[in-house]
C-alpha cells in the first residue's frame, strides 16, 4: 500500500466521471432534439431529485444506521425555501435572497461561537445544547429579517441587475438551492442534537413526528406562518421553472462525489463504525454523537438540495405531496437498492420513479387505479425474495471503499504444532 504512487485522479475516478459526462451529453442531446419529450425529461429530473434524497437517507440509515423517516420533511423545507426565494425574486422582492443567505451565514457564525462557549463547560446535557443552538438560530434569523433584509436586498438587486438577465437568473437559482439546503441543514442540526441521542426505533418515531409537524406547518403557511405567497393548503404556484438538465446532473454528480469522499475519509469510517457498534466505536475514541450528527446533517442537506431541484422542475408545491406516507419513498428506495450501497440507491432511485411514475401510468384504461395496488405487491414480493436489496453491498469501482489490507503479523499467525 505504501509503495503505491500517489495519484490525484485514479483510474476508476476518471472512468466514473467520464461515463457520467457521456450520459450527460447523450441526455442533453436527446432533450435538445426533443426525442425525450417534456414528460420523460421531467421523469428523469424527478428521478435525479429522488436519488439525491435517497442518497442522503442512505448516508443516515444505510451507512450510519440511524433509522430516519424525516427525510421528506427536510425535502419539503428545501423545496419551500428555494421556491420562496425564486418566487420573491421573480416578483421583484430581493429580500428572500438576502434573508436566507445572511441568516444562514450568521447562524453558522453563531454556531461556531456557541460551540466554543459550550466547550468551556462540562456536564452539559443535550437539551441545554439544543436550547442554546435554538436561541442562536432564532437570534440570527431575527437579525437577518429585521436588520439585514433591506440593505442587503437592495445590494443584491443592484449587483444582479447589472449582470445580464440569464446569468443573474442562474445566480439566484444557485442561491435558492443553496439556501434550501442550508436551511434543511440548520433544522436538521437543531433537531438532531437532542433526538439523535435516543437511537434505534425512537429516533425513527421522532423523525416521523417531525415530518408530520413540517407538513402541518406547510398547511398553515399563510395563516399561522407569515408566508402568504406559499398559499398554505392550496399549494404554492408561480414558481419559475428553472431546473435544467445541467443543474440536475451536476447536482447529482456533486452529491455522489461529496458522499463518496466523506465515506472514504476517516470521518466516513467513523460514521460506518457507529453503525456497526456504537459502544465499540466510542471505546476506540470516536465521538459518536458528532459522527451521527454529521451524517444526519449532510443527509438532510442533500434532501434540501433535492427539494430545491424538484420545486423548480414541477413549479408547483403542495403540502399533501410531503405527507408522512411519502416519507417512506426514499426509505423504500434505499432498502431496495441495498442498505449501504450507493450504487444500489443510484440505480433504484431512477428505476423506481421511471417505473412508478412513467410506466405504470400507462396502464390500460380502466386499470389506472391499480398502480398503487401493483406497487405494494411488487414491494412485498421483492422483500420476500431479496430482503437485502437488489445490489446488496455491491458498489461501482469508483464508489467502492478500499479498506487497508489487514496486516498479518508473525505473532498472531497460529503456529502449527508438529504431530
Amino acid at each position, binding site marked *: 500500500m505504501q509503495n503505491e504512487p500517489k495519484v490525484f485522479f485514479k483510474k476508476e475516478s476518471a472512468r466514473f466521471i467520464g461515463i457520467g459526462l457521456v450520459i450527460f451529453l447523450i441526455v442533453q442531446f436527446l432533450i435538445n432534439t426533443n426525442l425525450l419529450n417534456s414528460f420523460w425529461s421531467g421523469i428523469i429530473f424527478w428521478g435525479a431529485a429522488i436519488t439525491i434524497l435517497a442518497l442522503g437517507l442512505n448516508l443516515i440509515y444505510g451507512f450510519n444506521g440511524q433509522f430516519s423517516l424525516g427525510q421528506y420533511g427536510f425535502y419539503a423545507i428545501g423545496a419551500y425555501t428555494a421556491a420562496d426565494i425564486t418566487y420573491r425574486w421573480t416578483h421583484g422582492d430581493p429580500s428572500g435572497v438576502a434573508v436566507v443567505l445572511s441568516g444562514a451565514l450568521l447562524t453558522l457564525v453563531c454556531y461556531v461561537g456557541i460551540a466554543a462557549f459550550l466547550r468551556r*463547560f462540562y*456536564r452539559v446535557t443535550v*437539551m441545554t445544547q439544543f436550547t442554546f443552538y435554538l436561541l442562536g438560530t432564532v437570534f440570527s434569523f431575527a437579525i437577518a429579517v429585521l436588520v439585514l433584509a433591506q440593505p442587503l436586498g437592495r445590494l443584491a438587486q443592484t449587483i444582479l441587475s447589472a449582470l445580464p438577465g440569464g446569468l443573474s437568473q442562474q445566480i439566484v437559482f444557485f442561491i435558492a438551492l443553496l439556501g434550501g439546503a442550508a436551511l434543511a441543514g440548520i433544522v436538521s442540526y437543531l433537531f438532531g442534537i437532542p433526538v439523535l441521542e435516543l437511537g434505534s426505533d425512537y429516533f425513527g418515531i421522532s423523525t416521523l413526528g417531525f415530518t408530520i409537524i413540517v407538513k402541518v406547518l406547510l*398547511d398553515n403557511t399563510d395563516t*399561522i406562518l407569515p408566508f402568504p405567497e406559499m398559499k398554505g393548503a392550496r399549494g404554492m404556484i408561480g414558481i419559475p421553472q428553472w431546473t435544467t438538465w445541467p443543474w440536475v446532473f451536476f447536482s447529482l454528480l456533486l452529491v455522489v462525489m461529496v458522499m463518496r469522499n466523506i465515506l472514504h475519509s476517516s470521518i466516513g469510517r467513523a460514521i460506518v463504525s457507529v453503525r456497526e457498534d456504537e459502544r465499540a466505536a466510542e471505546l476506540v475514541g470516536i465521538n459518536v454523537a458528532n459522527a451521527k450528527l454529521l451524517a444526519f446533517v449532510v443527509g438532510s442537506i442533500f434532501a434540501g438540495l433535492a427539494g430545491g431541484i424538484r420545486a423548480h422542475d414541477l413549479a408547483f408545491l403542495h403540502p399533501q405531496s410531503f405527507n408522512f406516507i411519502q416519507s417512506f419513498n426514499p426509505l423504500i428506495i434505499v432498502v431496495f437498492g441495498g442498505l449501504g450501497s450507493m450504487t444500489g440507491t443510484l440505480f433504484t432511485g431512477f428505476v423506481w420513479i421511471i417505473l412508478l411514475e412513467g410506466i405504470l401510468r400507462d396502464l390500460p384504461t380502466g386499470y389506472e387505479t391499480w398502480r*398503487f395496488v401493483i406497487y405494494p405487491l411488487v414491494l*412485498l414480493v421483492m422483500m420476500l425474495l431479496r*430482503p437485502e436489496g437488489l445490489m446488496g453491498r455491491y458498489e461501482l469501482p469508483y464508489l467502492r471503499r478500499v479498506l487497508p489490507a489487514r496486516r498479518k503479523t508473525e505473532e498472531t499467525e497460529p503456529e502449527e504444532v508438529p504431530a
Partner: protein
Amino acid sequence: MEKAQNRGVPTEGSPAQSRHDGMILNRISQGLFVLLGLVVLYVLGRAGWKSPSIFIQQVLNGLQLGFIYALIALGYTMIYGIVRLINFAHGDVFMIGAFTSFYTIATLNLHRWPLWFWPNASGLGVTLLGTASVIILTMITTGALAVVVERFAYRPLRSKPRIAALITAVGVSFFLEYFGALPFAYTNNYITYPRPFEIEVYNAGKISPMLIGGMWVLFAVAALLFGVLYWRGRKGDLKARVWMRHPVLQWVLMLGGFMSAVLTLAGLHVETGGKVWDLSTSNVTLIIMGASITLQVLLQYVVNRTKLGKAMRAAAYDKPAARLMGINVDGVIALTFALGGGLAGAAGVLYATAYKQVHHLMGIIPGLKAFVAAVVGGIGSIPGAVVGSLIMGQTEVLAAGFISTPMRDAIVFSMLIIVLLVRPQGIFGEPATEKV
C-alpha cells in the same frame, strides 16, 4: 431531564480550572422549558376559568377519542412487544374494521337481527344485541385479516433484518388502502356510515339520578374493596394482593369510576354568576367507554392470567428460549396479531359510529396517533397504552380547542418528541437494557 453525561467531566490530566460546571446552563435551559410549560398551562387554565363548562366538555370529548385510540394502541403495543415490529398496517386493519361493519349494517342489516326472529322485540335489547354482534363479527374479520397478513407477509421475514419486515408492513398498508380504493372494493369516496343505533345526547335532566347514584355506589364499593385489599396486601397478605388484581374488580373500578364521573358531570345543572353549566354526553361516548374498558380488562386478563398470555409474555421476552420450553411461538404470534386486529376492528366500528364517515384512508392518522400513544405510554406495556391514549386524546382535543385548531397534529407530535426526550421508554415502559 437529568441526563447529564459523564463524557464531558474533566479527567485528572485535563486542565479542570479552565472548564466550568455546566449545571448552571442546564438549569437555565430547563427553566426555559418550564416557562414554556407554564405558558401552556396558563392558556389552558385561563380557558378553563373563563368557561369551565366548555373546558370540561372538551375533556369529555377527549375521553371518547382517547378510548378509541386505546383500542388501536393496544394492538400496536402487543405486536411491538412480541415481534419488535412497528406494524404500520394496523391502522388499515382499523379501516377495514370500519368498512366491514359498514357492509354488515348497510347490506346485511345485521344490527337489527333480533327483529328477524322476534319482530316485536323492544328497542334497547335489539340495539344492544345487534350492535354487539356487529362488533363481534367485525372483530373476527379483522382478527382473521391480521393473522393472514402475519402469515403471508411477516412470518417469512422473521429471520431477516428487521427493516425488511418494516418495509413489508408499509407495503401491506399501501395495499390495503389502495385495494380498498378500487371501484369494486370500497371506492375512494367518503361514505356516510349508517350507525347501528341512533345517537342520543344526554344532558342535565335526561339522565336519571338513579343511574348516576348506582354508578357511584358501584364505584364506591369497588374502591372500598380495593382499598381493603390494598391495605391487607401491604400487611403481607399474599392472597389479598392477588385478589386486588382480579379482572372483575378492576373492571368495576374503571367502569364505575369513568362512568360515574362522566354521568355526574353531564347530569349536573348549575347556574352561577351568569355562567350556565351545560354539559352533555351521548350514548356513543358511553358505549365507546364501556366497550373499550371491557375489552382492555379482558385483554389484560388474557395476558396476565391465562396460559396463552404466559406464552405471549415468554415469547416477547426471549423467542428462542420460549421455543425450547415447548411454546409454539409462531402460533402465539399469530394469536397476538388476531387479538390486536380484533381490537382494531372494534375501534373501527366505534370510530365510524362516533364520526359517521368511512373512507379508505381513514386509518392512517388515527393509527399513527394510536401508535404515538403507545410510545408515550411505554411501548410493550398494556396499561401504558391506555394511559398514553387518554393523554393523547386530551392533548389533541385541548390543543384543538384552546391553543390552535389547525396546529393540532403538530402539537400532538411535538408532545411525542418531548415525552421521548424526557423519558424515552415512555411513562410505563421499563428502560431498555442492552445486552452486551
